[in-house]
């Protein structure tokens, strides 16, 4: 009922906010279009690079960040790999 009254007086009813989904997906898409690398290809690249890193250090696979980022004017490949501390004392 309240909603009906609100509508009668012309206050906008709540939508499901899909426009922010649209905006996010669009931004993501355009960055990938610009470097001609699909999200799936970026994922493959990430996996190959992680395989190399794995040979040298131990890291927390869950916490890995690997994405394209559009700053002002240029696109950067941004990655953050949380490395696990190792106990360096020898026996």
């Amino acid at each position, binding site marked *: 009922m309240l909603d009906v009254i609100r*509508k*009668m*007086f*012309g*206050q*906008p*009813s*709540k*939508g*499901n*906010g*899909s*426009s*922010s989904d*649209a*905006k996010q*997906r*669009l*931004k993501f*898409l*355009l960055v990938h*279009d610009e470097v001609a690398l699909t999200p799936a290809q970026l994922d493959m690249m990430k996996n190959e690079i992680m395989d190399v890193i794995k040979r040298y250090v131990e890291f927390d696979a869950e916490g890995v960040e690997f994405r394209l980022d559009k700053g002002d004017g240029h696109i950067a490949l941004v990655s953050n790999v949380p490395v696990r501390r190792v106990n360096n004392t020898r026996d």
Partner: protein
Amino acid sequence: MSECIVVTSGKGGVGKTTTSANLAVSLALAGNKVVVVDADIGLRNLDVILGLENRIVFDLVNVIEGECKLKVALIKDKRVPGLYLLPAAQTRDKNAVTPDDMRRLVADLKKEFDYVLIDCPAGIEQGFKNSIAGADRAIIVTTPEVSAIRDADRIVGLVEAHELPEPMLILNRYRPGMVSRGDMMSREDILEILAIDLLGVVPDSEEIITSSNRGQPIAFDDDSPIGAAYRRIAGRIQGEDIEIPDFTPKTGFWPTFKKWMGLSGQEAY
């Protein structure tokens, strides 16, 4: 000074032909001599939107192939002085014309007209290349949807690569009610993403459909807010400084009550 403006989009069906027709009418109403060229060869539509389909004898391909004089192929609109259509061929395909042909044609038209508008076909192939070949400026039409804006972004890059700097955007089928509910990207969202100047906003409206049913572009209608939106865009094309309104739907008791009673099926602006 004469100017050739191409109306393009990448994605099909976003409103290039509707926009071309209404801007041509608006520019002519403002006292300019205007020709609008249907470059969608094989899928002729602009003549129908303008209500001139019964008067076509020759077309663009006839002119390019030298089968008739340019002047003979032009159809003069009888509703407003200074408005002409050069129709597309319906039974040929886009490869019947080359970018060089279009450059020559546009150069000839610019001698006679203040504005040469080109209604570009969808896509980025031959028809697109032909359409932008002779143009001085590009208008990019999009709707507020992810797929259309993605294609518009691609077109911005392509027209800039063809030395058409600073393309301008027309945001078509805008629904302010959906924007305020958070269910449609706002014009600010879209401009932030596309980084291009906004030339105008045209709301989504049933009037567009009824006017194309009749072959009477809405820009002819003095009382229509949609017609007014096109006439304002034409003013901006001519260099006038005209504000772009919000198109916030009229809210409050009466407009909403009327809508409920079915007196006006649409958002009022």
